[in-house]
């Protein structure tokens, strides 16, 4: 890619803006309208409203709590996935990593250590597993898809091998730790708060730090990034370590929330994480998208699971709906990108 690619294969969900003389307000408005985050958020809220109308129990007490609490795990994974996808990679091993870390945390506690040790241990373990992926991908220059597919199998296998048919039961875990699974601060579950803090942190990093912008650059055009002298390998490695660590944290959440960890913890959740990011407008080909979008996408995915039965949709169809959402999202991206190109062409027209 020596010149900026005009090839439509690389979708640009965040369409470039033509140079319009200072119309900050109108700019803002039109931006919001075009903003994927907003669109998904609207859908999400609409769902909640409809569900509440149909079933008064929907937002009552613990149901409301669960609505916020349940997505927190996927939220972590989606945040990590965003970091990785922005660099034009993908991490399919997060589910297995989550499992390993959740079980690890449980084991640490049932061995009688303090929950703090367990949390730190899980996060570190996650980071290490992420580093394994990152090293192979960044330095072996092999596609993330294949590598993380492999490590997904390998990590899960390792967990099965380690846990065997053993499971960590609620009784073996520190009660204080388990309470974390449901504790609330002014009606907002603690786990959700932590998750949101993490998301905000990631978002802040991506938006306002050099490193963050470099991640976008790398995903936007890896060749140019190399030619430019950006520390491509270091950044990609970093992204995977972060993704791993977040998966580790998600593992901790898992243990605290479900109060039981067996060897199949977190199976198949990786696709949901990718889906959340994609639905939230993170371009699978890297370079654009925000963690906000991914977070909202995560909320949407989980909430839909809850809402469909209330709307009378046979819950056997939930998978199908998720699939439809993903397709819808990327088709929308494509459409927006296409419109943006046409507009740009027109701009060259007038400037020419």
């Amino acid at each position: 890619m020596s010149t900026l690619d005009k090839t439509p294969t690389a979708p640009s969900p965040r369409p470039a803006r033509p140079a319009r003389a200072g119309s900050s307000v109108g700019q803002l408005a039109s931006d919001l309208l075009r903003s994927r985050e907003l669109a998904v958020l609207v859908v999400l809220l609409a769902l909640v409203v409809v569900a509440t109308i149909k079933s008064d129990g929907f937002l009552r007490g613990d149901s409301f709590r669960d609505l916020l609490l349940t997505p927190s795990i996927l939220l972590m994974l989606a945040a990590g996935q965003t970091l990785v996808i922005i660099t034009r990679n993908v991490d399919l091993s997060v589910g297995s990593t989550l499992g390993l870390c959740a079980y690890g945390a449980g084991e640490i506690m049932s061995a009688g250590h303090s929950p703090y040790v367990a949390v730190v241990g899980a996060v570190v373990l996650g980071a290490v597993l992420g580093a394994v992926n990152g090293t192979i991908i960044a330095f072996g220059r092999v596609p993330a898809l294949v590598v993380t597919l492999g490590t997904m199998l390998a990590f899960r296998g390792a967990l099965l091998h380690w846990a065997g048919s053993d499971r960590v039961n609620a009784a073996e875990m520190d009660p204080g730790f388990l309470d974390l699974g449901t504790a609330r601060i002014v009606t907002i579950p603690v786990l959700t708060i932590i998750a949101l803090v993490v998301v905000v942190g990631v978002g802040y990093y991506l938006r306002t730090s050099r490193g963050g912008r470099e991640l976008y650059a790398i995903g936007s055009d890896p060749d140019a990034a190399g030619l430019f002298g950006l520390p491509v390998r270091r950044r990609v490695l970093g992204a995977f370590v972060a993704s791993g660590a977040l998966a580790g944290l998600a593992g901790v959440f898992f243990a605290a929330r479900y109060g039981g960890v067996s060897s199949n913890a977190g199976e198949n959740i990786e696709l949901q994480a990718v889906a959340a990011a994609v639905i939230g407008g993170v371009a699978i080909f890297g370079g654009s998208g925000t963690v906000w979008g991914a977070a909202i996408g995560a909320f949407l995915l989980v909430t839909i699971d809850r809402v469909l039965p209330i709307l009378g949709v046979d819950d056997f169809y939930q998978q199908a709906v998720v699939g439809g959402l993903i397709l819808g999202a990327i088709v929308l991206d494509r459409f927006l990108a296409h419109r943006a190109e046409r507009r740009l062409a027109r701009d060259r027209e007038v400037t020419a």
Partner: protein
Amino acid sequence: MSTDTIERAVDQRTYASYARPLLWRVIATREFAVLALLVAVFLYSRSSIEGFDGPLTLYFLFGRSLPIMLLALPMTLVIITGEIDLSVASTMALTGAVLGIAFTEWDLPFVMAMVVAVGVGLACGLLNGILIAYVRLPSLAVTIGTLALFRGLAEGFLGTDTIKGFPEKWTDLAKQATSEGGSYPIVLIPFVVLAVAFGLLLHFSSFGRGVYEIGLNDEAARFTGVDIARTKLVLFMLTGAVAGLAGVYQALYAGVIRSDSAIHLELQVIAAVLLGGVSIFGGRGTLPGVIAGVLLIAVLNSAMRLDGVRDDVTDIIIGCLLVASVIAPTLLTWVSGLARGRVRRTTDHPSTATAPPTPSK
């Protein structure tokens, strides 16, 4: 990973191999390595794993891995064009579901039901193909979406039902061996036919040449008049159709249809294809290599189970094989490059300036 560095790695490999005599070139290929490994594992198992040398071993092995073998054929072509299809297993489940419904609820004659099912597979491929080839969406995202969609439809259609009671003559056919008590299921025959057909298509046709060109450099392919979109559409439709066949076979082999049939099979298929020497970047790989790859995984599975190794260990091994098989080439070039680099540095320039950090202003 910058593509041009990869290209350079690839170039070096090409030069290296072309510097050597033909025989060596053959031996140095991935396909050969996989084949050798397959033979080695097979012989080892025969000699030292108890029960492996019985006639049942191969019979079970083929019967069980036929869906993977089937799906690997079109998947190879898809991956050689640089795309991927993660939705094959879900397509199998969906076609299975439709087969069952068509047979039990719509009371179609079984042959018709099978035709309908395969048709549905074709349609699934068509959906993937249109979105990827003509709407130009990344196949990874699309097929992750359809993976969920097709599986979800299967679950929706079947719910808790388990559909069974297919005509004996078909279920038997799916399991019949060529000879009484022989090691080779009859269904191997259609597979071999398909394999040959795909082999000719990929290696001895203009279409196949186009498939490689798309994978190596789609821009150049377009400039030589290869119809990229159509090629990809055809490949995804083929994949869908074969997935349909596999779904039907799976249903007959298991004797039942459930919404969770063939779950996660796509990973095994892709693993096998990549293990067989197909480059995920496209443009490289051969069908014989892939078939060797599929069989390698199948034999490993069967042998280790016989040896009482738990599946999780097998998973670890296959996962590592997969990763190893993709880093091997880059690793080699890296090592050789390192060697060359060291030589040069020592000969040419004694001192190398370490750069100060970029001035930030």
